[in-house]
């Protein structure tokens, strides 16, 4: 089977975006930024799915929809948690969120 055009660049972009997301999660301390980095990682994965869908048929598209749905739900729950955290701590710095330690 012939490799579709743009597969390589799409996957490369996806990898770059995912890496940026990971680094953001690891390095940034603001919870909102962390949250956005996670979204970035999800979308990087979506891009990879779409790219592979060209090669393997439409099941990749279907999964993308699932991921988007989950991401939406996550955003709703996650933002609600952010709000609650901010009300409690007056801060969204991860270093202040350390109640559950051993």
């Amino acid at each position, binding site marked *: 089977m012939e490799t579709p055009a743009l597969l390589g660049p799409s996957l490369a972009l996806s990898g770059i975006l995912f890496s940026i997301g990971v680094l953001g*999660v*690891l390095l940034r*301390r603001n919870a909102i930024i962390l949250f956005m980095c996670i979204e970035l990682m999800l979308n990087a994965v979506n891009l990879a799915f779409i790219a592979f869908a060209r090669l393997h048929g439409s099941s990749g598209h279907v999964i993308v929809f699932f991921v988007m749905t989950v991401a939406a739900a996550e955003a709703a729950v996650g933002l609600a948690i952010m709000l609650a955290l901010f009300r409690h701590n007056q801060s969204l710095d*991860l270093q202040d*969120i350390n*109640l*559950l*330690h*051993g």
Partner: protein
Amino acid sequence: MTLSLLAAEGSGAGNTLGPFWLCVALPLVGFVINGLLALYRPQAKALVSIVGPGAVLAAFAVAVSAFLRLQAPGAPHQGDVTLWHWLLAGDLHLDMALRLDRLSSVLLLVVTGVGGLIHLFSVGYMKEDAGYARYFAYLNLFVAFMLVLILGASMPVLFIGWEGVGLCSYLLIGFWFDVEANANAGKKAFLMNRIGDFGFLVAMFLAWQVFGTLDFAAIAEQAPQRLPMGDPRVVAITLFMFLGCIGKSAQIPLYTWLPDAMAGPTPVSALIHAATMVTAGVYLVARSNVLFTLAPATSTVVAGIGALTALFAATIGLRQNDIKKVLAYSTVSQLGYMFLAVGSGAFVAGVFHLVTHAFFKAVLFLGSGSVIHAMHHAYHATHRHEDAQDMRNMGGLRRWMPWTWALMWIATLAIAGIPFFAGFFSKDEILAAAFARGSDARIYFVFYGFAAAAALITAIYMARLMAMTFHGTNRTGEAEQAHLHEAPWIMTGPLAVLGVLSAVGGAINLPAFLGQHGWLEGWLDPVLEASHAIERHAMPHGSTEWMLVGFAVAIGVVGLVLGFRRTLGGAIVPARDAAASTGVARLLEQRYFVDEIYDAVIVRPIQWFSRVVLWKVVDQALVDGLAVRGSARLLEGFGWLGSRLQTGQVGLYLLLFVAGAVWVLGFMLGV
């Protein structure tokens, strides 16, 4: 497994001998009824008085009918009844089987007959006791177990009875358990018997390994073919078996529980600790006679321990002041005679002495029961707290208790071996048998010497007992004398029957020198056939026999006269005012300090070891400390280490998470 309690399913021979299993069933039913009454209607004494002795007397009737069938011409020598299949495991096939043969029929009559009389006596003796129903429940249960012991066709079935009578003995020694000493005496008996039971169990395992069966008849049949004379295996089996007998029949070194067992009610001492249970060891040896005949080494040990015990216990009996303690040591001593007999290969003499001893010792114990009963009432009436069992407080009781006095004299003459009383024939036979064995094994002459000396001492201490109790001046007290009285007929009646048996009981095995062929000798012949085929020891006859008889009689007479005159010669001081004795007298009074020695050498080291090593080291340090608390500490430590990772910092968690993900990815890509 079929669980059919139907005698009809028994073998043909069992049927012709009648439903002898009822002997076991009847006292068991009595136990259930009395036990329920004890729990729910303890005040229903009239019903208990009917059920308790009734069950045993009914068993006696069954025993008599079975005996009559057994001795009918053409009757089989034995009959089996298989009640149910008990154990079926691999090669092991064990039936709950009872067997009536000539040996067990003799014991059956003694246990149910003497037992029935003692039950009747108990009706009077225990009348005012609050635990009346409980007492008869235990006593009925004891008879049931004793009959299982006697009728058991195989070692394990016998062992059920063996353990069962031990249990009942424990329960009845500690019958008045609100006094701590009584409860301790029960425990002592139980624990010392465990040592013996261990021996019996080992003997059973060995017998199973050698013969592949535990049935007495099968073993008796196979043993002479499979094992040569003196084979180490048969010596081991018999030695371990004899260890069981030492425990149960109170021989040196495990005899100390029997004198303590006198803490129980006196009829219990008569039934369990004189007439029946303690003779179980002698019965077991007689039952396994083939094995003991094949093991001359063991037989010598049996005879030696028996002779030594006979002499040793008799000497202690010389200086005891408690009337029951004298009789207890006398029982230990007489059991020694029985073992001397079976150890000399004279199994008939052993069983004969077992029977006659059951008669005269029952009289002596029940008679002492009557005396204690009267003494107790007298002290109770005057509210004086004196020892009702101490002979120093008695004296001259003949005036108030002529029947008891006369009957106890009969028994005393019997135990001393005065001619034509029951004990004369049986003791004489034992002495003759031991003497006869001396010709092929010199050591038996020593045993004979021990036994003869014990006979002299027996006569002395019995005369002393009679003199201190019934003769001389009364030392009970002026006020108490008005309350001394003869026991009621329900007590003197059974005593009289047993007294007659003590007088004429020797008739069951009259010796050859009276121109008789001993009935018991012929009766037990089928049981001892296999032993006789291996080896038959000739009994002395002619002038030797006459000499032995004359010597034994002379010993008895001299002993009685000596004991009687010595006792009445000096003034006896009542227990309260008596000074502590010194020297040899003190040694004997304190029973050679054997209890104290056992306490120092065995009990205390075990207690020390238990407390310091087992409790402090093994239990507290190793089990509690290392195993239980240690493992908890270990896991707690792991948990602490894990908790160090729980910093609460999300950043760290994420870092670890990503690192983990990268590691898994790398693993999957095969890097």
